[in-house]
């Protein structure tokens, strides 16, 4: 495939991003092998212990050991992000292509809808949805679906802009003159060029979805029994970990989350700049 002959070495940001993601996956896989995930359940260790040889990352007020909790929490948070981000990008790609390629009133509708919804504070709306649909907590999957509701706007905007600029290029007319129909033009002519942008939008959407998810969890609307990173932070705040000085309760989830966000940000902006020179160097 022609697109893969570009080695990411000349793009520093992309390399750093990919390395960080690799680190995350390694943490998830190795953790799964070497750490007993049962220790993530309550009273599997003495409560509120500072990090020590026995409890590498210490334990929380209910006796959950932090390291296993992290190893159990990372996959769930990532899964929510991937599902919500994925759905968001799929919706964004279809809407972006329809608006950008077919223009006319459908473009005006999609464009103004995405701009208007974009300015609405997503968290506020998600709060209403989450709090109404379940007075208890949501399951991880339903959380992903709710977050997906408001993660299509940004991909729609960026992909529409790319399709609009690409569509004006004469090779689209040339394809039409060679007998291609609209859908074939989208798939064979436009899609391969926009592939790096689609991946970049996907990575950005995953980051945005995770941010929205931990936002809801931090407000207590997350899955009550799944040990996601956001919920760990919520419980630590709920039990006043800051005041009591149990920093090891909220420090690990924050560090892992920052790791995730920086990794995804570097990858998506690296992909963007890698996609640009290729297009410009026509």
């Amino acid at each position, binding site marked *: 495939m022609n697109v893969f002959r570009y080695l990411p070495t000349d793009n520093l940001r992309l390399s750093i991003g990919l390395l960080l993601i690799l680190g995350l996956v390694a943490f998830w896989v190795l953790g799964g092998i070497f750490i007993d995930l049962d220790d993530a359940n309550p009273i599997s260790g003495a409560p509120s212990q500072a990090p020590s040889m026995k409890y590498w990352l210490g334990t929380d007020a209910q006796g959950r050991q932090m390291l296993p909790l992290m190893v159990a929490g990372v996959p769930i948070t990532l899964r929510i992000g991937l599902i919500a981000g994925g759905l968001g990008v799929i919706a964004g790609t279809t809407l972006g292509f329809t608006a950008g390629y077919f223009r006319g009133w459908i473009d005006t509708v999609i464009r*103004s809808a995405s*701009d*208007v919804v*974009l*300015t*609405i*504070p*997503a*968290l*506020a*709306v998600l*709060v*209403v*949805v989450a*709090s*109404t*649909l379940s*007075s208890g907590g949501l399951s991880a999957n339903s959380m992903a679906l709710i977050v997906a509701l408001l993660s299509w706007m940004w991909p729609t905007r960026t992909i529409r802009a790319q399709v609009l600029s690409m569509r004006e290029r004469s090779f689209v007319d040339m394809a039409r003159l060679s007998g291609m129909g609209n859908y074939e033009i989208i798939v064979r002519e436009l899609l391969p060029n926009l592939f790096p942008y689609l991946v970049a939008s996907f990575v950005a959407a995953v*980051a945005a979805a995770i*941010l*929205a998810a*931990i*936002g809801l969890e*931090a*407000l*207590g*609307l997350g899955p009550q029994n799944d040990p996601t990173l956001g919920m760990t*932070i919520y419980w630590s*705040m709920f039990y006043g970990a*800051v*005041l009591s*000085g149990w*920093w090891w309760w*909220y*420090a690990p989830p*924050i560090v892992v*989350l*920052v790791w995730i*966000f*920086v990794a*995804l*940000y*570097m990858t998506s*902006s690296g992909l963007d700049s890698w996609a640009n020179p290729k297009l410009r160097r026509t």
Partner: protein
Amino acid sequence: MTTRQFGARLLVFLIVIWAAASLIFILPHLAPGRNPVRERLIQQAAGGGGRALGIEATIAAFERDFGLDKPLWRQYLVFMGNTAKLDFGTSLALYPTKVTTLIWQALPWTLGLVGVSTLLAFGLGSLAGALLAWPGVPRFVQFLFPPLMVMSAVPYFLLGIGLLFIFAFKWSWFPIGGGSPLSSYPEWTIEYIWQITYHAVLPSASIVLSGIGFWALGMRGMMVSIANEDYITLAEMRGLKPRRIFMQYGLRNALLPQVTALGLALGFIVSGIILVEFIFRYPGIGSLLFRAISAFDYFLIYGVVFILIVGIALSTLLLDLVYPLLDPRIRHGKD
């Protein structure tokens, strides 16, 4: 900006408000076979240890008072009427205080925090971004770029917790939360105002630090592309002073897309601020929303969310009205 354009823009603003109100009205009825208000009343009654016997009657009375027994569309009209008067009913948890009074108490705190920190982040970030991109600027400025990039990826409230731990808990330079000393009584004295700012430092710092990164990156990208524009090359060729080219030719043009980006980012910023207020227990609308959620106080939740959406829609409207003043190409059409 002709009156027709203004009218069209105002129409969009009203549509957004109407959509937000309808969304808030429809959502509770979406959940099949569940009436959140009824559940809340049962929960509250049972919580008090009282008998749940007579509860059905009280619920029926409650529903009659609030017209919840009428057909849906009539309820909708009543709801819309109240929302227009900004009357969201009474808070369930802090009965009988009105939702609106709670909101008016919390709103000034949030406006202060949002206003100051967003403008600060936008201003400093845009300037830093511009300096990063301009060829004439000394090299050391470039070292600013990597940290800014990393910070822009970190959400406000995670940064907030970090700051809280280091500056409040460990070194206790700043109070560990709250908007003003518990004992204080709000009055216009230097002492009280100083207290408010002293409490607001950490919350706004967490917003500004992450915000600066976001705005700097946006501005840097803009300035890099503007540096190659024909009008900048001609300005250099005409021997204009570097300072003038940077300010009146470069920065002045890069500001336009930056203001548009501000409009689009408002929703994102407010979402962040809700969480920051929760972490710092800052007495703004965010904490109010958090308390409303944990107490399942639906009317308060709907009121706060509606005010947030209206606030954002209002500020985007203002930004759209300000934008033509910045860009003559929109102010004066092609005549």
